[in-house]
């Protein structure tokens, strides 16, 4: 596979969230607003790229039997790094993300890419693959986050975007969007739209 394809395929056509069905947990939990979604997307992109690189560099030294533990340790180390950085520089967002930064460890995207790609590929394609998947994941996060914030609170990044005249005309914020069911339904609709466009169908 060419490097370009490795980088761009996971963004739309093989998106980790909507096509590979990985990493849904965090995609839903942090997306009540755009800002935490953005930070989460960047955090995951960094972690996935770095761990892909490290695993790819040491791939021929990892004994096959204990590879999962080795991979988990690498991911956990990266997550600790990112968590400490967030706490130091973006404390309020870090508080908002609460346990979900830690939960990147069990985010199946990261382990999935390590197992499926970094273990059998050279470092450069592994970086591209990690970065592409991170961006694909972030895109979905940002879409869900923006949708939930606009529909649920009428704001975007904290600024109100719905004109007052609309409220005067009887428009109401949809409080359900801020709650859990809103996230499920919005992501379901995004998946529907995305698959209708790309033509990826799943047989039950």
């Amino acid at each position, binding site marked *: 596979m060419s490097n370009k394809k490795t980088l761009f395929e996971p963004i739309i056509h093989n998106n980790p969230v*909507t096509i590979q*069905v*990985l*990493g*849904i*947990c*965090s995609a*839903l*939990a942090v997306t009540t607003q755009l800002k935490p979604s953005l930070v989460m997307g960047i955090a995951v992109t960094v972690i996935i790229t770095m761990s892909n690189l490290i695993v790819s560099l040491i791939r021929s030294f990892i004994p096959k039997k204990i590879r*999962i*533990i080795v991979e*988990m*340790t690498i991911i*956990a*180390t990266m*997550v*600790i790094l990112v*968590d*400490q950085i967030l706490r130091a520089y973006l404390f309020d967002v870090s508080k908002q993300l*609460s*346990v979900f930064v*830690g*939960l990147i*460890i*069990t*985010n*199946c995207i990261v*382990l999935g890419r390590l197992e499926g790609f970094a273990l059998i590929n050279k470092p450069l394609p592994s970086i591209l693959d990690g970065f592409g998947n991170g961006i694909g994941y972030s895109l979905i996060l940002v879409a869900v986050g923006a949708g939930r914030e606009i529909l649920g609170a009428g704001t975007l990044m904290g600024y109100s975007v719905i004109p007052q005249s609309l409220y005067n005309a009887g428009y109401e914020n949809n409080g*359900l969007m801020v*709650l*859990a*069911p*809103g*996230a*499920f*339904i919005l*992501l*379901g*609709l995004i*998946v*529907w*739209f995305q*698959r*209708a466009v790309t*033509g*990826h*169908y*799943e*047989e*039950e």
Partner: protein
Amino acid sequence: MLEMISLGIKSVFVENILLAYFLGMCSFLAVSKKVTTAIGLGFAVVFVMAITTPVNWLVHEYLLKAGALSWLGPQFSEVDLSYLNFIAFIAVIAAMVQIAEMVIEKISMKLYTALGIFLPLITVNCAILGVALFMIERKYTLGQSTVFGISSGIGWMLAIIAMAAIREKLKYSNVPKPLRGLGITMLLTGMIAMAFMTFSGINI
């Protein structure tokens, strides 16, 4: 006692780990196609949660949190290892899952063949790590953590069995092609989550 029951009911219904916090979505989506397998995985999760949550609590309380090492001597009372939480918890979970697998194999072959294939999967189930992280964030006692762990597991089991039952029926309906699989499952989960929201007034 009453407080424990209240916490248990709260974590099974009101703050269901899957439907309100989105934890454990990956295996929820992947293994909810048949009721029998859903029940097997559900029991495995309850079992592992019941063991790992108290063990993680002990590890945090006596090894990792700020000042936890003071039992070794006064010179250790300043040590704060809580940044190692993530890596320690995931190691405990992986080890516990492994031990549980061996013990079950020795004690009951029948249970082992029923749970066997699901046990390794549970290591990367974010619900398990999520419960450990929530219990630290909410500063639960050992008793509360155990109740919280078990009841979260039961809540997760309830959700996955409900989903599997719906998906078994869904096979006979004509779902639009791009919506099949992930899309329709997300929309249905949203509706189950909405139904569970009606529990939110319950107080004991």
